[in-house]
């Protein structure tokens, strides 16, 4: 059986066809083969969350999935979330509240936080600080001490909830 395989997938809205080694992880694939270096590689065993990205609509560890498993999948990285404007308010809040210093964890943090905010949107709820902490519990930050990150996510949760209420009335 071959160690290389052809895959076709959608990455940030664009169709991509590549030949990859079966052993190549998704995060190495997007960084090395596609040049999308916003997703970071920290621990390579699922613990730090630096490689968090979206596959078929849910967040995953890019280091714990193989690129070949994503044949036919829809992959979104921080570049996609950023370019589409989907996380623009989160990014602004991170900047305003000093929720990043070195920025190594930030793409993963934004991607994880955005999933929680989307779930809150679907349930028309505002996540509590505990829920925010729980949802980003799998993302390590070595700089900020987390409080500023929780503040930033909480402020966006409240703003989006207000915007929803405004849109309904």
């Amino acid at each position, binding site marked *: *059986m*071959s*160690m290389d*395989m052809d895959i076709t997938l959608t990455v940030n809205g664009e169709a991509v066809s590549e030949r990859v*080694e*079966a*052993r190549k*992880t998704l995060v*190495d694939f997007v960084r090395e083969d596609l040049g999308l270096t916003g997703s970071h590689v920290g621990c*390579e*065993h*699922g613990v730090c*969350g630096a490689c*968090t990205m979206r596959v078929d609509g*849910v*967040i*995953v*560890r890019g*280091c*714990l*999935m*193989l690129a*070949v*498993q994503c*044949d036919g999948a829809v992959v979104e990285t921080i570049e996609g979330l950023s370019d589409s404007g989907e996380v623009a308010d989160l990014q602004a809040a991170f900047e305003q509240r000093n929720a990043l210093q070195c920025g190594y964890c930030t793409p993963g943090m934004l991607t*994880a936080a955005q*999933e*929680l905010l989307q779930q809150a949107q679907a349930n028309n709820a505002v996540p509590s600080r505990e829920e925010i*902490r*729980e*949802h980003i*519990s*799998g*993302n390590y930050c070595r700089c900020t001490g987390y409080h500023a990150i929780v503040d930033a996510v909480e402020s966006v949760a409240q703003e989006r909830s207000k915007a929803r209420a405004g849109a309904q009335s």
Partner: protein
Amino acid sequence: MKPAPFAYKKVRALDEAIALMGENLDARLLAGGQSLMATLNMRLSAPNLLIDINGIGGLDGIARNGDTIEIGALTRHVQAERSDTIARYAPLIARAMPFIGHAAIRNRGTLGGSIAFADPAAELPACLLALDGEVTAQGPKGKRSIRTSDYFKGLYETALGPQEILTAIRLPAADGNTRTGFAELARRHGDYAIVGLAASARADGKGLKDVRLAYFGVGNTPLRATKSEAALAGGDVDAAVAALDLDPHDDIQASAAVKKHLAGVLLRRVAAQLMERQP
């Protein structure tokens, strides 16, 4: 680190996977990958072939058949976490779910993978033992079911044969008299437990009967504390704590003495949950 080279095959049927395992004794099954991929990246294992079972239809799903709940092996943690059937008929699993890893891990990890991997500090194997559940498996010789008491054999070692695939777990469906309790201690939310306890019992008048206490993180497999079960059924929590006869080893998380102490702390918490009237 990066995994050593391997070939990859996505299969569509159980038979296909079983046949491939027969031809390739060095192959490994890939389910959620949330344990396996980490071991490959660290080169703790280097199989020559990964058999991806995620494309096999009908292996995920949660169903109630009379007084049994059946959970397909490929059911992802997040599905179980959000399932109304689990909340109502397998409340112990519902209690345990939020403690398993983090959101991104639960989006991919499977219940079957967790029971097959049998990490000694994992929640679900202990839940299965506390509920006296069953594992169903399929291999070259056909299908069989395995009682939990015969399933966990040793450290990461189960009764599954080298060519067998875990297809589902079966649990008794909870009814009005079912009581469950769950608690664990970990350094960071979502990490594997330092010590944990999953428990089930039946209400018996004002007391309890059929108490089953399954500890995890204190030995090579989940372990029952049978002497404490009897004491708890008699209504004596202090005696139940005194009767704990666990023999944990020191590990990177805590010393044996600390683990023993924490086991008692958890027993008091779980006993309180078991005594509560539950919906």
